[in-house]
């Protein structure tokens, strides 16, 4: 499964490769010697008990935590671009309560853009059923609605890799179905998803079970 071999087969599809990852926090290795490869159109579901390192791994993939050892590469692109090709949706929604939903999303559309385009803000909000809330300050929204605004980022800016940390948190049943559809659509378009989850995601791909360290 060498990236070079993948490219040699003439496919220009992306592949996310992590080899021998070791990630330490506070001097303690949370993830040790982890390797995986994820092809375009696949979802990697990270499962495991609390404290197993799911969020840590996602933050490291997003370039927010340094690697103690190992490499993360995105073929055919070079290694250093991985965080810029990835959408990170973490526990915090990253929204400013004083700004309206549209203002928040327009800001992210501009700052996260990597020249791959994306849906207009209005359409992205409509897809997540938030068209009616577009002009409201984010502070007035419920936790689930804020989550949906954060997820609307995924559509407003196109990036091939989605790193989702517990994406279903605070979402109601209808929104969960909606998110499932959006994720499936992303995969069929040749995207990659790495998602940490406790609830099962009904998506094509692999599961990586992390064990609690020590």
């Amino acid at each position, binding site marked *: 499964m060498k990236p070079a071999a993948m490219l040699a087969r003439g496919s220009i599809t992306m592949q996310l490769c992590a080899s021998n990852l070791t990630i330490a*926090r506070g001097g303690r290795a949370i993830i040790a010697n982890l390797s995986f490869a994820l092809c375009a159109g696949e979802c990697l579901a990270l499962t495991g008990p609390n404290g197993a390192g799911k969020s840590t791994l996602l*933050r490291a993939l*997003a*370039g*927010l*935590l*340094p690697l103690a050892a190992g490499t993360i590469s995105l073929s055919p692109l070079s290694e250093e671009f991985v*965080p*810029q090709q*990835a*959408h*990170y949706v*973490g*526990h*915090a*929604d*990253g*929204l*400013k*309560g*004083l*700004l309206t939903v*549209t*203002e928040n*999303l*327009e*800001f*992210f*559309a*501009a*700052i*996260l*853009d*990597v020249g791959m*385009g*994306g849906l*207009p*803000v*209005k359409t992205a909000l409509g897809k997540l059923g938030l068209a009616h809330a577009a002009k409201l300050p984010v502070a007035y929204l419920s936790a689930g609605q804020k989550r949906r605004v954060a997820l609307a*980022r995924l559509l*407003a800016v196109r990036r091939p890799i989605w790193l989702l940390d517990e994406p279903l948190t605070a979402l109601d049943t209808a929104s969960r179905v909606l998110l499932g559809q959006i994720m499936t659509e992303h995969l069929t378009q040749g995207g990659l998803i790495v998602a940490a989850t406790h609830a099962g995601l009904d998506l094509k791909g692999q599961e990586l079970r992390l064990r609690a360290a020590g």
Partner: protein
Amino acid sequence: MTTPKGTPKETSPLAALFLRDIRTGRRIGGGTSLGIVFFLILVTLCAFAIGPDLRLLGKIAPAILWISGLLSTLLGLDRLFQADHEDGSLDLLLTSSTPLELIILVKCLAHWILTGLPLAATAPIFGLMLNLPLSELWSVTLSLLAGTPSLTLTGAIGAALTVSLRRGGLLFAVLILPLCVPSLIFGVAAAGAGEASLVPFATPFLILCALTLIAGVVAPVAAAAALRNGGR
């Protein structure tokens, strides 16, 4: 405010960031006016503490204005990145393809426009309260205009270093205040260079401008390095 229909992609990333910071700063509830009120209170306190000696007051007015300006500029500056860190948007800024150094520079610019600029603009009025000679009003204003950006930029380094600390305010002040000494020295020297002074205005003023320019280059790089390593 209605946004025109169309493509948000046309907005440049840095313009969008600038707009967001100005908007949040303005909507936070009189952020700008509160800074000015704090400035006014500091100046008034000094005047009360020194007493009714108008000649003495006029003589040390540039120093009072500069110290009050320094403290008002640093007030709230420790939150420059902390607010973004807490709501998670700092993580997203780090995954942007825009260089972090430029992002920091733009954030500093937005912060300075909301705090430093109004400070410099109101300084002559407060100068009158301190019996500042009329000939020195413009030199105080100009020196604050040229000097406060260096304070904001230097403060950004401290803000980046203390970003993940809940009660980083005091540590921030301890880290940053010593670094503000050069700007303070040349700022006060320029501000006090009136007609009666021995020092010409240009000499300290140009050094002050140089300090601001140096801070404009060094501070974003240092703050970016601090933020990148903040995840450890």
